[in-house]
């Protein structure tokens, strides 16, 4: 592991008043890895993503992306450097159609200074957007306003929008949360297929152990703002500390029953 990691966090701290949401986090992720992050609610997973993407400044510590410090950069700058993210609750433009959502994302990805007079819709853009929607299997919803499409579709559109700028790294924040149980695996399958095809480094936060262990090569376990385990899925999930503090708290039996 001598190559420069694509993402490196050093001694990250973050507190909200008396609550510490991140405590001495040290993480190195190499290009091409697919890393899962597990932890119960409030363990600091989303806080970690928020800090890495510039949404939330860490109280202390250092974050490097491709070896360069990105501390203090706005989310848009970090996005432009090639780190995109999706959201726990799909962050879309509800009154716009699915296609327009994609087109807006695309036009911004094409230029940081979108045009005032040239139309958003042009043939090339629409084609690219449609291709992207088709990749995720949601092309059928093209002309539906986001408010009228199912939750799972929204999650996919959300991820498709994150991917449309061809990022080198993608952070997925609970991609299957809010999705019906029986849709979770199909959804993850299509997501992972696309991201693999794009060769993107992925870090994804997930409650569900089964989903995590199925798709990732490495797991980080968070507890109370700290990384308590880091390693291959089998090793981490067998860790007694993880068993006690994370798995025991998650209550994920239901997914198991369902599958």
């Amino acid at each position: 592991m001598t190559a420069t990691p694509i993402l490196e966090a050093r001694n990250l701290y973050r507190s909200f008043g008396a609550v510490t949401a991140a405590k001495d986090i040290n993480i190195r992720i190499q290009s091409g890895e697919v890393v899962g992050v597990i932890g119960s609610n409030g363990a600091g997973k989303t806080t970690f993503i928020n800090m890495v993407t510039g949404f939330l400044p860490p109280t202390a510590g250092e974050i490097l992306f491709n070896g360069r410090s990105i501390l203090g950069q706005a989310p848009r700058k970090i996005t432009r450097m090639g780190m995109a993210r999706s959201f726990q609750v799909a962050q879309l433009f509800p009154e716009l159609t699915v296609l327009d959502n994609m087109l807006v994302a695309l036009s911004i990805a094409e230029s940081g200074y979108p045009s005032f007079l040239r139309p958003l819709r042009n043939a090339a853009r629409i084609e690219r957007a449609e291709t992207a929607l088709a990749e995720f299997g949601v092309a059928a919803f093209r002309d539906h306003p986001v408010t009228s499409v199912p939750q799972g579709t929204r999650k996919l559109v959300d991820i498709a929008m994150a991917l449309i700028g061809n990022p080198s790294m993608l952070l997925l924040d609970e991609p299957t949360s809010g999705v019906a149980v029986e849709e979770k695996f199909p959804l993850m399958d299509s997501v992972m297929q696309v991201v693999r095809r794009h060769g993107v480094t992925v870090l994804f936060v997930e409650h569900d152990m089964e989903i995590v262990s199925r798709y990732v090569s490495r797991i980080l376990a968070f507890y109370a703002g700290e990384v308590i385990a880091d390693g291959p899925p089998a090793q981490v999930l067998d860790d007694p500390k993880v068993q006690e503090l994370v798995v025991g708290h998650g209550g994920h039996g239901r997914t198991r029953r369902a599958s």
Partner: protein
Amino acid sequence: MMRVDRTEAWLLGAGLALALGALVLPSWLTFLLTIAFAKGLVVQGVVIQMRAGLVSFGQGLYYCIGGYTVGVGGQMVGVHDAFALLLLSMAAAAAVAMVLGLLLTRYREIFFAMLTLAFSMILYGILSKSQSLGSTDGFNVRAVTALGWAPGAGGKMFVYVLTCGCAAVAAVLLHRLSKSSVGHVCEAIRENEVRVEYLGVSPRWMLYATYVLAAATSALGGGLIGMATGHVDPEMAYWTTSGEFIFIALLGGISHVAAPFLAATLFSTVRTYAIQFVPHSWQMILGFVLLGIIIFLPKGLWSLFRRTKAEARA
């Protein structure tokens, strides 16, 4: 990209037809339309911001700057050319907006509304204090020329034609804006600002650009109104004037670029008749109309047309 689409052709056609209407329409009607279209331009400024999710309760600021620039330009600086005056108005408004925008774009929702109101009231205060500009009485605007030609007695007619022209051109440009990337990004900002940031563009910068553009558009309307009425006064910056613009914006809705012009015409008409027939309670009528629109036509009058079309189709 320079192809004129159907809506644009219609807008230009309507502008031309209305301008030619100067030959046949009675002069009180052309005046009413001059004011209505000029106000429509001011309202376009409100609407551009509404599309991006910002409601300005102080658009009177730029309306007033536009009017005063035309007034001061003619009365004190010696610029009489209508086109030069209008360009100056827009430039002055844009310059002010560039400064205020730095602060204002940090705010959203009612904070934005209240701060815009405050700035517009500060201008009102300054102008009320400026005796050289006639204080609260304001001052009269000189007759304008056009590229060296003095319309003389036909001055009002010229301003009418000019207003139709400005309105049509502005409508086409604003129509393009609403279809453009920025137009859609602004809508996206209204819907979800955080996501826009994460897509890689600064919502604040987009709103800033929108704010400045809206200021210039409103100033254009203010300048035209100054030329048409021949008088400007600080009342233009008073918050109730801005309230009127919001009223018109809601009346028309934000879904079509022609809506503000139609709404402004309707507003002027309704108000004229309300003042004539119920001089003691015309405000109440406006209030009920406004409530009715909010409750029954939340997307503005334009939605009426849309609905009938959709029904006809179904």
